[in-house]
């Protein structure tokens, strides 16, 4: 700790205020020590990370925010939670796994949510999310800010720097508080951290502050100064807080030098207060302990959360009405652009983010054309930082906005996956349905443009089966506006897969002869193409960019193979509405899935598995898909790799011979 720096602060805090702070810090300490005891008694679930020794960081920052500010914390969050919400009861019940816990026992120690307080156990990922929430605050113009706590170890995460760059550029009112306790789990900072922490923030032009929990006199006014800077200037700041954890990282994982721990224990403000004022200390302690004891006793009697309250079974529509598909003499991309124009015009909460989306360029596929000129405040053309912008979109969604994020090429969505899987997907359930995350992530997939291995893949298989995330594949049979209207109303995350070669096509122009092509009336409609009068004898399920190749194969499948196929085109590829597929297969006993990605562990596998689980008869099945190699640029080679109408006919022929 650097004496010279801390002396800069001149404001002192008065005795009464100091006593308040000590009380709060001691409450945090005793609650956490209770956790350690309960843990030893087997009354806690999982693990706990306590902040014993670091309480004053919580008191100084979380304790001094306005209740309408938002705060995002990490795995070591109990102190932050108590200081911000003053709700130790909900916290204890949560860790004891009870229904009355702040998240019904689902989140436990690392995943808390109460009004504007959030925490998550993923290092780094919370930084862009909190930036998104702070951006929401900025857009609402009510002078509220965001604050995020990270540890020194988390400075190893790249997304932290992507976010620093963005918050600085976009002037997002976010205060990053870095609690430097010199250890990441069991590893000393010096092992993994190069250079200087403060300089990292300053390199992005972010104003930085530095304090220490051992110097409460300076820490408290310093913390307030940084909070007020962020609020008044509407700019980000970085506050490095030197501190020390007096107990293990979680439980029994401490190999630190005993002497080192003792040295820091002597600097601990609570210990110093205790030594100086033993009587007052003991009086406060007794009061706190009695309070905690009572709370624990009463919580022990409480119920566990029932499965029904946590898990909602997905129910499929039993009754489907079908109506003819509607041909539209407009290109898919035009309709998408119109949709965004309309919804941004109609709803102030709709925001659009993505790389290179400023006009006149308007995005790699021009979906965002002219939006930046019409809605300059709500269109964010971002740096090349997929992870951070996905996190920011998540944060906006959590804070009540409807963010549409464009990922330029589908292949790049892998960089967003932490945000999709560990954040967007989990928020709703792990925070016990107190909040939802209606983020929409759109991306263009598909080959046939010669873009080569990293710009052509259809990797929808990595985007299905994510809990609580709906995955949509647009096609050229349906007006994308109709699907988008449902997406717009969805309160949960939606991933939209668009197809590069479909953007330029008009809607429902090429339909098979002697077929009824109809669309269902569900939220995410299904298209069914069946012969006008004949009973179908084979079922093809497909989606996205494979619709046209499949339609092109229909006539030959009939003339050559005598197959009267029924084609089912899914829009929602996760979760899948199986009824139309089941009904069709019951008639035809033949099920072929046509997908543009490679088949192993993909959508086709899942459809075939599910249908097999529900049907006793023998069914002929095949997955028709790309070969399992990266997609080559060379045109002819690419054509050989990707499935087309000829592949469909050939593979089905083989399956039946």
């Amino acid at each position, binding site marked *: 700790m650097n004496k010279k720096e801390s002396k800069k602060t001149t404001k002192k805090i008065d005795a009464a205020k100091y006593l308040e702070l000590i009380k709060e810090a001691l409450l945090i300490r005793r609650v956490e020590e209770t956790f350690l005891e309960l843990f030893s008694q087997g009354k806690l679930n999982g693990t706990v990370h306590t902040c014993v020794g670091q309480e004053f960081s919580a008191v100084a920052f979380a304790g001094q925010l306005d209740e309408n500010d938002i705060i995002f914390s990490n795995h070591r969050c109990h102190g932050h939670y108590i200081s911000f919400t003053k709700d130790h009861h909900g916290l204890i019940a949560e860790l004891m796994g009870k229904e009355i816990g702040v998240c019904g026992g689902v989140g436990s120690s690392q995943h808390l949510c109460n009004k504007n307080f959030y925490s998550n156990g993923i290092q780094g990922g919370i930084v862009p999310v909190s930036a998104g929430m702070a951006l929401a605050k900025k857009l609402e113009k009510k002078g509220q800010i965001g604050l995020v706590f990270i540890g020194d170890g988390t400075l190893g995460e790249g997304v932290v720097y992507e976010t620093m760059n963005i918050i600085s550029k976009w002037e997002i009112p976010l205060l990053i508080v870095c609690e430097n306790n010199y250890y990441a789990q069991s590893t000393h900072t010096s092992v993994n951290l190069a250079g200087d922490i403060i300089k990292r923030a300053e390199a992005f032009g972010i104003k930085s502050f530095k304090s220490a929990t051992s110097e409460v006199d300076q820490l408290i006014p310093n913390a307030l100064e940084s909070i007020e800077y962020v609020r008044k200037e509407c700019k980000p700041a970085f506050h490095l807080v030197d501190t020390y954890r007096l107990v293990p990282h979680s439980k029994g994982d401490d190999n630190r030098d005993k002497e080192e721990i003792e040295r820091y224990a002597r600097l601990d403000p609570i210990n110093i207060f205790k030594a100086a004022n033993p009587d007052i200390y003991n009086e406060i302690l007794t009061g706190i302990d009695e309070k905690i004891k009572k709370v624990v006793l009463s919580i022990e009697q409480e119920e566990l959360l029932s499965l029904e309250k946590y898990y909602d079974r997905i129910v499929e529509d039993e009754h489907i009405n079908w109506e003819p598909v509607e*041909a539209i003499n407009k290109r898919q991309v035009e309709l998408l652009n119109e949709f965004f124009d309309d919804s941004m015009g109609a709803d102030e909460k709709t925001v659009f983010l993505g790389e290179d989306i400023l006009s006149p360029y308007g995005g790699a596929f021009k979906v965002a054309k002219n939006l930046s000129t019409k809605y300059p405040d709500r269109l964010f053309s971002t740096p090349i930082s997929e992870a951070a912008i996905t996190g920011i979109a998540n944060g906006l969604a959590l804070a009540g906005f409807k963010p549409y994020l464009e990922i330029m090429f589908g292949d790049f969505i892998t960089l967003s996956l932490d945000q999709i899987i560990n954040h967007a997907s989990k928020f709703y359930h792990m925070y016990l349905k107190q909040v939802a995350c209606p983020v929409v992530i759109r991306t263009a997939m598909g080959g046939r443009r010669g873009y080569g291995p990293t710009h052509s893949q259809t990797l929808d298989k990595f985007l299905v089966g994510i809990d609580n995330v709906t995955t949509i594949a647009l096609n050229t049979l349906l007006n994308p506006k109709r699907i988008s209207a449902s997406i717009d109303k969805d309160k949960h995350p939606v991933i939209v897969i668009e197809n590069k070669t479909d953007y330029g096509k008009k809607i429902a122009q090429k*339909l098979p002869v002697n077929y*009824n092509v109809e669309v269902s009336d569900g939220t995410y409609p299904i298209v069914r193409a069946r012969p*006008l009068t004949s009973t179908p004898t084979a079922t093809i399920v497909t989606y996205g960019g494979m619709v046209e190749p499949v339609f092109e194969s229909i006539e030959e499948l009939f*003339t050559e193979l005598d197959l009267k196929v029924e084609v089912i085109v899914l829009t929602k590829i996760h979760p899948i509405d199986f009824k139309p597929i089941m009904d069709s297969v019951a008639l035809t006993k033949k099920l072929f899935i046509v997908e543009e990605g490679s088949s192993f562990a993909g959508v086709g596998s899942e459809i075939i598995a599910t249908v097999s689980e529900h049907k006793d008869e023998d069914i002929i099945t095949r997955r028709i898909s790309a070969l399992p190699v990266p997609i080559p640029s060379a045109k002819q080679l690419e054509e050989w790799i990707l499935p087309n109408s000829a592949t469909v006919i050939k593979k089905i022929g083989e399956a039946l011979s």
Partner: protein
Amino acid sequence: MSILQEISVPQETVNDEFATVAEKYFENGDKVEHGETLIDIETSKAVVAIEAEKAGFIEYFCEEGDDVSVGDTIIKIYDSVPAPSKETEIEDLTAPAKSASAVETIYSKKALALLSESDIEKSSFTGHDFVSVHDVRALLSPEPKQESVIEERRTPVVEPDIKTDKVDLEKLSTQKRIEIKYLSQVQSSGLTSTINIYVDIEGIFQFVNKHMEVFKNSLMPIIIYETARLLSKHRDLNAYFAGENIAYYKEVNIGIAVDIDDGLKVLKLPGTDNKSLKEIETEILDLSNKYLDRKLTLDDISGTTFTITDLSSEGVDFFVPLVNKEQSAILGVSSIDEKLKRCVLTLTFDHRVMAGKQASIFLGELKIRIESYDLAKDEDKANELLKLRQSERCGVCMKTLEDDEELQGIGLIKILDHSGIEKKICMVCLSRF
């Protein structure tokens, strides 16, 4: 091209939500003049004629017979000929086939090969979308059914706990109980299905009324006549489910269900497939008289192989008939919709004997056969010819064409007389010159 006038369905009567397009006076693209009647719209109270307020080129957005809602755009008048819009074209493609002949049948290669070897005409598949080799085979030799034996389900007779203070009990007549037993045989399997088809009757009665002496304005004789002929081809409908077998009748004995005074009876027309239309009419008359005089013999009401039931005089729009015992199907005839000039034929069939497909093919063929009696056009021609034959005369002996035929002449010859006037002359007078 710009729109000069847009016409929507007027709110003629406050109560009507929709009206029906009665008549369109032009074709799309026709030139219309100011004040010309374009369309008749029928509301519940009146027929309203709508006139053009501008001269221009017309496009209709409705068809005759369509129900249109008040406020719907039905006509636009343009300053130049409107190009057919792409959207309508595509919609047409996906719309269900309006009439059987509108569908252009697609044949698989194997189907075509098999067709060329067999004596089946392609016309057997009119109205089909796709004809596969299986479809052709099915027509060549209907596959024997391999239905599993289904135990006749007996409805357990539960004597309900009847409170006689609440209801009056009346015993079922013997006849009713027999009827229930007969109808239960097939229906209790629960495996019957029913299909319907519209038959256009435009012009059919002109034929019927000319050829039938008593059964004027009735479709029954031709329905019986045509059904009988089809039954010898569609054996599944002239058969019944018999445990592990299907029993195919060797004769076609159509039964007609009558229920006038003396309860429901099914009267047999033996060997129906060999009877002429006239014979059928006479037989129905005889049987009906016997029924009314209560002189029916056992033979008159037993041994039918297929039943037709006619509720057309009862004003029903459509009904589901029940299959008689030891039969596999029954045809129901509903009332004629005078406005739409059509009626509904309904076929209930035993799914253990045939599938919906065979039944549909049968019904579809029956429809086509009945509709082919529309002789309106031929009739007009005949009348014209008759007039001609009675009015054209030999300019010399004044005999008519008709007289000439009777005298075995060769007809009339056209000549030019000396003043250059065209005249007709018969062979006899000509040879005298």
